[in-house]
């Protein structure tokens, strides 16, 4: 499975990736204003239907050293994506190659994927009469053609690299091993929500970059799995139970009535 490894210690915040994403995916610019607090250089403020990738600017004091670290917002391409689990019509799907892709022809626009995504990635075209859910596709068209995603290709410092997920995890572990003081000893995305296809390395705690560190290590699909698995059981069980209960009750009513009236009337005709 293909994946991206984003090593924020290598990122210089040039935002080539942000523009490359727009160029390849033909996304329009947003009207922005200076983003005062707390990000300074960052713009747009957030992902949107027009912006699938945003570099964030974070000032931090860690280990007595001032750091200016650049985070990356984009789809994490979870191994078991909660958006795909949530989607009632498989408009969002995980491909074998790694990207989580979207098919507008199926989409109802229910936006459950947006609710389900722990990373707030899927974005809706609120301003359109015929809206779509939009998000980073890991440049699935390029990946299918054997190319790397636009953001990985454009990155001057190899802060974003593209490859097989296992290889990238090995590479990330290797980097931490080689430079143990230069990294937080954690590969973000290796285990988060059951693992993602976008992995992050950082020299500052991931909260500083605005990443959620309270996410479970299991796929969010697991949270609905039981509830969904019991549906057929409930269905058949309920049918049998309802039949049985109604039979018992009706019988008792009839018996009671028989005892009272000695004849049957009412319930049936």
């Amino acid at each position, binding site marked *: 499975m293909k994946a991206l490894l984003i090593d924020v*210690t*290598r990122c*210089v*915040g*040039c*935002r*080539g990736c*942000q*523009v490359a994403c*727009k*160029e390849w995916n033909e996304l*329009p*610019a*947003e*009207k*922005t*204003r*200076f983003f*005062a*607090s*707390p990000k*300074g*250089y960052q*713009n*747009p403020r957030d992902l949107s239907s027009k912006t699938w990738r945003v570099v964030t600017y974070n*000032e931090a004091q860690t280990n007595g050293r*001032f*750091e*200016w*670290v*650049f985070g990356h917002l984009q789809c994490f391409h979870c191994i078991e994506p909660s958006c795909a689990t949530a989607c009632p019509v498989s408009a969002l799907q995980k491909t074998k190659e790694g990207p989580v892709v979207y098919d507008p022809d199926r989409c109802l626009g229910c936006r459950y994927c947006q609710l389900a995504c722990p990373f707030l990635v899927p974005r809706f075209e609120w301003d359109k009469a015929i809206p779509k859910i939009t998000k980073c596709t890991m440049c699935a068209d390029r990946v299918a053609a054997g190319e790397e995603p636009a953001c990985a290709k454009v990155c*001057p*410092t*190899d802060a974003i690299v593209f490859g097989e997920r296992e290889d990238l995890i090995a590479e990330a572990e290797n980097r931490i091993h080689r430079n143990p003081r230069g990294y937080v000893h954690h590969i973000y995305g290796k285990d988060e929500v059951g693992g993602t296809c976008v992995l992050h390395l950082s020299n500052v705690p991931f909260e500083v970059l605005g990443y959620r560190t309270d996410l479970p290590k299991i796929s969010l699909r697991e949270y609905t799995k039981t509830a969904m698995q019991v549906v057929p059981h409930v269905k058949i069980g309920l049918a049998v139970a309802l039949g049985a209960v109604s039979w018992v009750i009706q019988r008792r009513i009839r018996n009671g009535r028989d005892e009272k009236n000695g004849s049957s009337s009412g319930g049936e005709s």
Partner: protein
Amino acid sequence: MTNHWSDMVHADVIMIMGSNAAENHPIATKWITRAKEKGAIVVSADPRYTRTSSFADVYCKFRSGTDIAFVGGMINYALQNDFVQKDYVLNYTNASFIISEKYGFDDGLFTGYNPASRSYDKSHWAYELDGKGMPVRDMTLQHPRCAFQLLKKHFQRYDVDTVCNITGAPRDVYLQVCRHYTSTWAPDRVGTWLYAMGATQHTHGTQNIRTYAILQLLLGNVGLAGGGVNALRGESNVQGSTDMALLFHILPGYLASPTAADQSLAAYLASNTPRTNDPKSANWWGNYPKYIVSLLKAWYGGHAARENDFAFSYIPKRSGDYSWISLFEAMYAGQIKGLMLFGQNPAVGGPNTNKEIKALEKLDWMVAVDLWETETASIWKRPGVKPADIKTEIFLLPSASSVEKEGSITNSARWAQWRYAAVHPVGNSRSDLWILDALCKAVKKEYAAGGVFPEPITRLAWDYGTGEEVDVRKEPDVHRVAKEINGYFTQEKTVGGRQYKKGEQVPGFALLQDDGSTCSGNWLYCNSYAGPEKKDNKMARRSKRDAMNGIGLYPDWAWCWPVNRRILYNRASVDPTGKPWNPKRWVIRWNAGKKQWEGDVPDGPWPPGEKHPFIMKPDGHAWLFAGNLNDGPLPEHYEPLESPLPNMMSRQQVNPAIKLWHKDAPEMNAVGTADRFPIVGTTYRVSEHWQAGAMTRNLPWLAELVPDVFVEMGVDLARQKGVQNGDRVTLETARGKMSGYALVTRRFEPFRHNGKIVHEVGVIWHFGYQGIVKGDSANVLTPHVGDANTMIPEYKAFLCNVYKAKGGAS
């Protein structure tokens, strides 16, 4: 750049000072971070913690305008601790040269100073010559007047405490910087120095760079892979445009533009061709006559002949200074009537734009050639003016973008690379080549009927395949122009036993002649188009074959001046026997068996030891002591024109050799003082915008990334001023004021100087009143004052005040 972009990967220490490479040359970071991966130390010295600082191992702050003190201290540190590569310094620099007895230095002034003209008599700083006219040397470096001892004495004054007091750099961090960088004195270690406009845009900009050069020479870092003094140039072809001499003081190939004193070619050559009596000096500039004659032949063809001094009289002769600031002062004074602009936007980019815009209004006519409607072309539309009041007639000509035309551009590493037309120019826009060709033909037509001194125009050699008439459908043949720049034989000629036919391309500048048998529009580019076919266009080469030293020179990728030499001064990368100082990443080496150099194209073919390595210097040595500069042979710290502090080194507050415009032309040239303007201000750029902004503020994607002017200021200052992050603030100097959003950040910290706290603020200068995103230009703040040698404006340090703008928060 002496070296090139991917060469940075070979450095052990990378000093980034006066440059914010991550913002302004983002792809440089590819090679810097790769070097870092291999263990290199990256140092960022900057008044503000930048995106470059974000990946540096050491960040050291210092107040804008105190570069000489900062690096002077490093030089002193190297000299005091003997972190000097002695063999290199002794053999390849002028350290051993004895300087004239007339030299002296006292209280900030070198000898020979004339306060009335604010200039030096440089003869006080000359070498002492022996009877044969050879410089006297002391190879023990002990003579008190040898350059090395003078240098040592001069920089002794820059001890760590003094330096930290002047610069405001934290002592411990500063010492770390010194330690890291001077570690490259060892022959197997090398450091590279990256700088840009942060270093040059000062009243002592040239001397800033001199400190870098001196330190690099002491450490033996020039000429080596991963070393050098590297100016990161900010525009795609500012190297090429300089090579082609779009500057008043030079002709193509860095030949001096003639002055009124040069009444004949002979007089011109006499004053410009350097001479040496040292047989070991290659003295490359001794070829001056060949280059100027070949240039004149390229311009005037058959009309340039020995009989008429090769039409030398057609070339304008200057009297004095015509540099940028002088130009706008002259325009303001009403002297200049017409202006042609090709892709330049002074209404945003010039210093003291309030004055420069006023100057533009005084023009009779303006021809602006651009892709966009720039601020300059639309001064009559700017906020607060009535168009009717502006009488300037303006022609705005639409030009083609870089993907709509063919030609070469030269990057910062001197690589001339060919571009192709992918599509036709949009609408009715035309390439600048077409526009220049059309204008020239039209002017020729005008002068065909006579006019003042029409010969330089009517006789100008101008045939690029479009016929006599202006025709919008006929694009000039850019290959013809490129071949003229390279040069060709104007007649049959035998050189070095080989016969060249008339019209044959000259294969290299060593074959250029001073008898009119060759022409070359720019001798430096001779060899770039060495044959008649398009395949002979070396600038279009795309081979990734590496040279045998395997250090990524890629000699068959594009073409690089001079003669495809990828690392300048590479003869200094080997010891006097031709063995590389560092065999692991050698640039050139002498193959004694084959009796030839291997690796990069060497600085001349001579065997090791036969010639001194710095062939462009008449003495063949790199200059620790430079007697040719206007403001002194050794760098000395002076404060910027506007500074909140007295100069702690001497009573000379500012560079004594600069022109003081506020005295000579006081109108709109006010200078501020620390009582009203106590804060140091500086200007800079961001990665997402480019220069005066027309090329980025008109692109929606880039406008989105940085939509507004912002002013960066420290937390303490913001608290004092009652400014919150995101508030609108006004910056004011003696010349103007502008507003932007406050970005309150810990990346800007106050400086301590002798216990006094000085705050600094910075503002991006890309904005103007045109484009998708608009804002005030920061250059309304900057002064009309220039460097003593180059006249580059002092954009980087001025006095200002900042306060919360009315209208409040965002």
